[in-house]
């Protein structure tokens, strides 16, 4: 199983670096938030693949679930803060 999950992890790492472009130079703050959320969701999958790679999935799946909860709460909090603001960005 390592012969499948080692190249898979490397490919996922390359895919994660693509939305960082949108985080660095997005025109608005929402584009940056969207890029950060995309990086977070892909990082969840990467954590699960690393769990298969190390053969300790029982530990890494809990870390992945906690990461998903934190990502969701962060996105909701920032969106609520930005949506109630009246100032033009």
């Amino acid at each position: 199983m390592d012969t499948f999950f080692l190249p898979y992890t490397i490919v996922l790492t390359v895919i994660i670096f693509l939305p960082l472009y949108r985080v660095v130079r997005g025109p608005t703050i929402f584009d940056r938030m969207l890029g950060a959320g995309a990086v977070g969701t892909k990082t969840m999958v990467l954590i699960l693949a690393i769990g298969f790679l190390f053969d300790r999935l029982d530990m890494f799946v809990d870390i992945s679930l906690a990461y998903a909860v934190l990502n969701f709460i962060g996105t909701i909090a920032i969106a609520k803060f930005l949506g109630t603001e009246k100032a033009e960005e």
Partner: protein
Amino acid sequence: MIVNFLGMAAAIGGAFFLMVGSVGLIRLPDFFSRNHATGKSDTLGMMLVIFGMMLIEGFTLNSAKLCFVLIFVFLTNPTGTHVLANAALRIGLKPWFRKNAGKGE
């Protein structure tokens, strides 16, 4: 053995959909179309990858936890993108049309 190959195929298809979501996030013209790209194809790709990992893992407790992760992602990832789009509309971000294509984003 054939279940392993099915799981690997689902994981590779999910990685393809994650890559399509990333490319759409880079190349589409304004915020709402980018939101559309990453809200759907990222959810589908991640669900495919986790389903493939469930097939590889077999019928254990870890597989049940992976099923919980799948349900959680299926509920929360579109919710997050919808809340972001709602906040952008409330602030007053204009959608992109072709007739004012050259006047900035």
